[in-house]
């Protein structure tokens, strides 16, 4: 681990200002991903700004009838929050499908959104990885890619975003509320929050330097049947091969976001018009333009099958 300096701040605005003051700084919340990456020197911040005590740990109703989830609400608290379980069951189920109880107790809402990929080549600093060292190449594309992305990827990077929570939030049309160093705030729709890798896979979100996430906003509940089906080799404590987060209405319309296939939760709103026609039609549209490797081409059929399972379950 590279030596770093540390400070604890009291307010979100202070955090953003502190980051602007010290180049090479990183925000620390739950630390479940950042500390691992620092030990491996994949992340080498010169300065750590501990935002753990800035508040932001409440879940509150919004005037619009939705929820405002503080950036520091833990995955455990969010999954167990009664209005979340009642009105946003998809989110609760996605959270509980991820990690372990111990990790969910530490991991935060904002940290979950910002976790890095689990591509094994990203984690081994001897290997080429454009995300870790821009311009060094990608060892994964011609290497072990079974877990990796099939769509939205580029010839520079085929990493996936590993979050379950983000898949649910994408289907729920969540927004990400932030504060910048100059004190201004904005809300970014999650649909626009992540960047596709292109030739710059090290840039993963549209957050500006020193911009701090303060909350995630959920619009008012939309009803429907909420299903999160995560497909994995072992029954627990594994990242998704693929996952399907679905809200299906009685009339057969709905929304579906998919995890484990792309550098971000993958949702194509126009494809959702095909949901009443069935899984095959929907998935063909959802994954149009996919560029899988030989090792992960199975994900295309797996998404279709899993969407079929979800639609079938929603009907019963």
């Amino acid at each position, binding site marked *: *681990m*590279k*030596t770093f300096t540390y400070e604890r701040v009291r307010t979100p605005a202070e955090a953003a200002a502190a980051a602007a003051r010290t180049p090479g700084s990183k925000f620390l919340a739950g630390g479940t991903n950042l500390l691992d990456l620092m*030990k491996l*020197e994949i992340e080498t911040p010169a300065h750590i700004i501990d935002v753990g005590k800035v508040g932001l740990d409440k879940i509150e109703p919004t005037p619009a009838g939705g929820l405002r989830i503080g950036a520091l609400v833990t995955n455990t608290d969010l999954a167990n929050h009664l209005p979340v379980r009642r009105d946003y069951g998809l989110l609760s189920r996605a959270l509980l499908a991820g990690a372990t109880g111990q990790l969910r107790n530490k991991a935060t809402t904002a940290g979950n959104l910002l976790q890095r990929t*689990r591509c*094994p*080549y990203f*984690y*081994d600093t*001897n*290997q080429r990885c454009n995300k870790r060292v821009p311009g060094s190449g990608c*060892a994964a594309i*011609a*290497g*072990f890619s*079974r877990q990796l992305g099939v769509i939205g990827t580029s010839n520079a990077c085929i990493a996936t975003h590993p979050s379950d929570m983000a898949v649910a939030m994408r289907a729920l049309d969540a927004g990400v509320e932030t504060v910048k160093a100059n004190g201004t705030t904005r809300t970014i729709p999650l649909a626009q929050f992540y960047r596709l890798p292109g030739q710059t896979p090290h840039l993963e979100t549209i957050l500006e330097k020193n911009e701090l996430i303060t909350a995630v906003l959920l619009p008012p509940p939309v009803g429907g049947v909420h299903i999160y*089906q995560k*497909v*994995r*080799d*072992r*029954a*627990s*404590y*594994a*990242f998704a*091969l693929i996952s399907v987060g679905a809200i299906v209405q009685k009339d057969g319309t709905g929304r579906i976001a998919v995890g484990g296939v792309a550098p971000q939760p993958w949702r194509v709103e126009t494809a959702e018009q095909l949901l009443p026609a069935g899984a095959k039609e929907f998935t063909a549209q959802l994954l149009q333009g996919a560029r899988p490797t030989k090792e992960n081409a*199975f994900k295309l*059929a*797996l998404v279709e*099958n*899993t969407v*079929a*399972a979800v639609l*079938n379950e929603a009907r019963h």
Partner: protein
Amino acid sequence: MKFETPAGINPIDQQKVIGQPASRLEGPLKTTGTAPYAYEYHQAAPNPAYGYVVGAAIAKGQIRRIDRRKAQAAPGVLAIVTAADVGQLPPGKFYADRLLAGPAVDHYHQAVAVVVAETFEQARAAAALLKVTYTQTKGAFDLTAAKDTAIVPKQGEFGGAPQTKVGDFEGAFAAAPVQLDATYTTPDQTHAMMEPHATMAHWQGDKLTCWCSVQQLNWGARDLGTILGIPQENIRLISAYIGGGFGGKGTALSDLVMASLAARAAGRPVKVALTRPQIFNNTTHRPATIQRIRLGATPDGILTAIGHESWSGNLPGGRTEAATASTKLLYAGANRFTELRLAVLNLAEGNAMRAPGEATGMMALEIAMDELAEKLHMDPIALRIKNDTQVDPEKPERPFSTRKLVECLQTGADRFGWSKRVATPGSVRDGQWLIGVGVAAAIRGAPITTSAARVRLNRDGIVTVETDMTDIGTGSYTIIGQTAAEMLGVGLDRVVVKLGDSAFPQSPGSGGQWGAASSTSGVYAACLKLREAVAKALGLNPAETQFANGQVLAGKRSYALGDAAKAAELVAEDTMTYGTLAKQYAQDTFGAHFVEVGVHRYTHEIRVRRMLAVCHAGRILNPKTARSQVIGAMTMGVGAALLEELVVDKQVGFFVNHDLAGYEVPVHADIPHQEVILLEDLDPTMSPMKAKGIGELGLVGVAAAVANAVYNATGVRVRHYPITLDKLLGKVNLT
């Protein structure tokens, strides 16, 4: 004591303590976190420093230059050791791998240097500053590509003959009315034990003490001595508790060597632990195999030809994965052929992992038997029973000492409800799940070997046992304590067991499923001597003296056991050695595994629903620890069947998924229900204990039973482990 003729009635047969389900003696220490593992000896040596191993960044080539200036200048750094400092080190006797690279690099993450600093964090940070430049050369990493270059190796110390032929296999196979010819593959696997490889090394003059995590301590001292070029007598290894090994900590590995070198260079005790990502490519693993099995049978299911060939790869000088071992012994059949072939691969060393050879080979053979049964329209249990043998099929003059494979299969079938099985695959549904059941036989050798122990008796009647046997989480402490308690007629609460110190009398350690039977037999021998010493001290005739309830009895005279040690502690030491019974008899353990799986109709995720093992493994010294061994092994078998694969990057030349997020082993949610039945068995040809090992038997055959259950559920035959959902997608008939 030399054991040369089958055992008669002896004190162990009382089974007052032996055979009882005693809880582990060290259990409370482990559940309270007070059993110290190697890295946790904070007070044993003064002021330890910390070493961090730097692994090679390439798979094959030469170290061109190591620039240590920045690392040397980093805060807290005390020493940096490379081959440039200590020269080229030879391998030990057991492992072929050189544990310090330089100038050649033989595999990825081979240790290149150890950086020593005041704290672990300083050592790790400085290690990252060590600039190593390499010249890379081309290596061989792909077993399939190297297959044709594989040769039949010379017979090694373990694993048996690489090639065996009985009768006319080719002719009989060609003439067989029913034939099966199929090729199976098993991947590289890692042990994934909880405790990483770790050592604290402490030099006092030319004497070296290491607190370490080594399963066979006297091998460890021998090999460390060879590698460092110092006499074995100058080395003391202590492994009182080991957090799992599964064959991955057999003897000296890089943590032991690098800690020793680091401590010498720093002039201080040094702790070294391999990080989890280093373990996969730095240490050993179970090598991948390609296996071709040919079975010929008559229409009524009598095997007439059995052929099993297996290919594996290893570093030059490494061992062959003896995947044909079980095939030599499991089924009758007049015409037989087995062959092992070994290719050179520049990956980390392939070596022992729980039931080496046997677990691997049975992953293939027991699918083949299932496939043959289907071709014959026979029940797979009936096929196995029909081809049972009570003699070594390669040497019919050599009977099995005890063998109840048929009873294992029948008992298991009854308990599991095998009669309800629907033979036509894909027939049974439960909601969205396709349900299938599978069976496999199990066989694992029961080696037993020389083992020594020392037993002490004090005036309070406390019996203390000392042997360098290790407890890798298996229950060695407990069964050794039970042996001494039974022999001396006391309760387990009157026995103290001290293990895991190479200064104690030598046992064979934990490995090869020989530890339990061998080490308790050594304790038996020492206890016999102590009984004589007790009788003598009390002026009794040893032949007439009884030991029961803490009392020593002869005729009408009775003493408290401790009375014998009133004047001075009594100490007895002996070594159990063996004659030729293992040559006269085939000594093996047997079992049957039954598995029910569900395969999700849409996603094809495979989940085990219930498992049953029936084992026949000599006297069960402790049914609780034995059962724990078996359920742990069954869990490992599920991993082998469904999850575990060290993925080789054939371009770079390394195991890519080198952490426990990438290399998945089963978690609790994968293992819903396990049952174990231990059949009664006393094998007097083994030792006075009449016991055999069981820890590896529980793994053998499990993966094939799972594979066969997946076939029964789906109608898709997967011959390439692990059986993952992508291998089923598009092949399962969903109508």
